[in-house]
């Protein structure tokens, strides 16, 4: 069976890879958007924290024998806690300054973290064994679907939508949105805004770590796994605009799919297609597809 001269197996295979990549784009850009909303900081350390998530899961398995499912719960807490330490010790000193200092600080932190891990583990990846429950796959007739990949797509969709629900539909979320809009006023109403900022940063980092754990079995655990990814995610964020939570989720998945399609039809451009889309979006709608100019 062929579509546009491409065998369907290859087409759907690439689309699946695209969806997987999209899941990670969505999770990471969601974390960036949540952090940016409240802290006005672009978290350059996000890629390093994603990598730390994967390594943390690997350490749990290799040193303590703690498996994938527990890692999925423990790792975001651990890495999120580390993020909170960073926020309290460093980022919180910069809120009164130009936001670019936050970018520079988190860039420096990313260099430190990636450098230390690279010194220790080199640049070749370490494989992380897939949990036994999710190995294997099923034949859907038109393509073969590995169980683990299906799980990644479903899990990240659920986490993204849950985050969207909490922020847009609950009382906690309404505080968060209000603090994004006007922190002084919210503080005057008796909400502890600094603590909210700290926890928000921790949550955004935890999302990155969660993505890292899920990435372990697909890509290998590698000190530089987050370094190039984060730049693509930045482009995703620029395309989607930071205004909307749902927007960053949709943009993430959609761009993953487009990237997958590019791999089928014009593989030479698959590395750059997201950046090209970014350039086009900037020409047509500079604020991003879902964003508002601010």
């Amino acid at each position: 069976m062929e579509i546009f001269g491409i065998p369907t197996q290859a087409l759907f295979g690439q689309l699946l890879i695209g969806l997987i990549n999209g899941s990670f784009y969505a999770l990471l850009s969601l974390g960036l958007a949540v952090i940016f909303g409240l802290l006005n900081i672009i978290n350059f350390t996000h890629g390093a924290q994603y990598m730390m998530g994967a390594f943390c899961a690997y350490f749990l398995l290799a040193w303590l024998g703690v498996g994938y499912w527990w890692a999925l719960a423990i790792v975001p807490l651990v890495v999120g806690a580390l993020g909170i330490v960073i926020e309290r010790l460093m980022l919180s000193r910069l809120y009164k300054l130009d936001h670019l200092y936050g970018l520079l600080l988190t860039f420096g932190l990313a260099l430190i973290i990636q450098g230390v891990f690279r010194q220790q583990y080199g640049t070749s990846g370490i494989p992380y064994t897939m949990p036994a429950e999710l190995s294997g796959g099923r034949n859907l007739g038109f393509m073969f679907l590995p169980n683990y990949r299906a799980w990644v797509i479903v899990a990240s969709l659920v986490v993204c939508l849950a985050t969207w629900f909490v922020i847009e539909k609950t009382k906690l979320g309404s505080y968060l949105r209000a603090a994004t809009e006007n922190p002084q006023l919210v503080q005057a109403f008796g909400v502890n805004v600094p603590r909210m900022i700290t926890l928000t940063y921790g949550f955004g980092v935890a999302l990155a770590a969660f993505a890292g754990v899920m990435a372990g079995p697909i890509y290998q655990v590698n000190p530089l796994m987050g370094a190039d990814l984060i730049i693509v995610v930045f482009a995703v964020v620029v395309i989607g605009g930071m205004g909307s939570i749902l927007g960053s989720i949709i943009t993430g998945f959609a761009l993953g799919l487009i990237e997958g399609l590019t791999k089928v039809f014009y593989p030479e451009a698959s590395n750059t297609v997201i950046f090209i889309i970014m350039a086009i979006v900037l020409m047509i709608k500079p604020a991003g597809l879902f964003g508002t100019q601010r």
Partner: protein
Amino acid sequence: MSAVPGLAGAARANGHAHQRAVFLGMLAFFIVAPFVAYPIFLMKVMCFALFACAFNLLIGYAGLVSFGHAMFLGTAGYASAHAAKVWGFTPELAILFGTACAALLGLVTGLLAIRRQGIYFAMITLALAQMVYFFYLQAPFTGGEDGIQAVPRGKLFGLIDLSSQWAMYALVFAVFSGGFLLIHRAVHSPFGQVLKAIRENESRALSLGYDINRYKLLAYLMSATLAGLAGATKALVFELASLTDVHWTMSGEVVLMVLLGGLGTVFGPVVGALIIVAMENYLAQLGSWVTVTQGVIFVICVLTFRRGVVGELARVIGKPL
């Protein structure tokens, strides 16, 4: 970007006499230094110093932080190396061609990037630079991971053989001091004053009738061109153009040089480049610890040392440097 410290007085007219003295001191340093230190090292310092000055023009005077400046350094490097090696251009033409290519890239990316400001500007330039990186990674003429090696230095104007270390040093010195003076001239021209006005208060500059996007684009273009000049010269010095110069780590490095030397100061980028290049030279065998050290310097600078070396010095002596 009003939060950059110590900028407001950076260009008061009364500061010029001692700035001239410091400038002459800097020239004297680079004239004497090759008798003491390794000339290749000093040429590298001057190339990076010019690169950092070009970057500083953008961040210090236009308030725009580019996280993709490596694309200009690398593009010019590849273009001049290709021109010198494959097309047999003489060195001055190869450098001009490389610089022109960087300027063209600056025009294209600038038109896109200046549509957003602040953090978005940084992210967009980073993403565009990454796109350029992937292009060079795949393009056949760049030699992929190997880069363009054994680039001939050639004969300047067909007369002076640059394979002599001294002739090359003189050329790099001329390029560096010329670029430095050009930036100085631009900053103190009416054009530079308008840039500063835009940086301090964009809406007011707009309401005074300045076409702010055109000024920003011009500043960006000039910064890209001079970064390209540095990259083209560097390719001839090392007889090599490689992917290192287009990678995002290089974009981060130039930010670090300027931050460490002093954002928006006249001599800060040169000092920052000297320190960072020296550090890399001495720590080269330590592998990834170089990256870690750079990260630590970033963190320290941002948290406690935002004026940078030269900015702090200027504060101590009470005069802009």
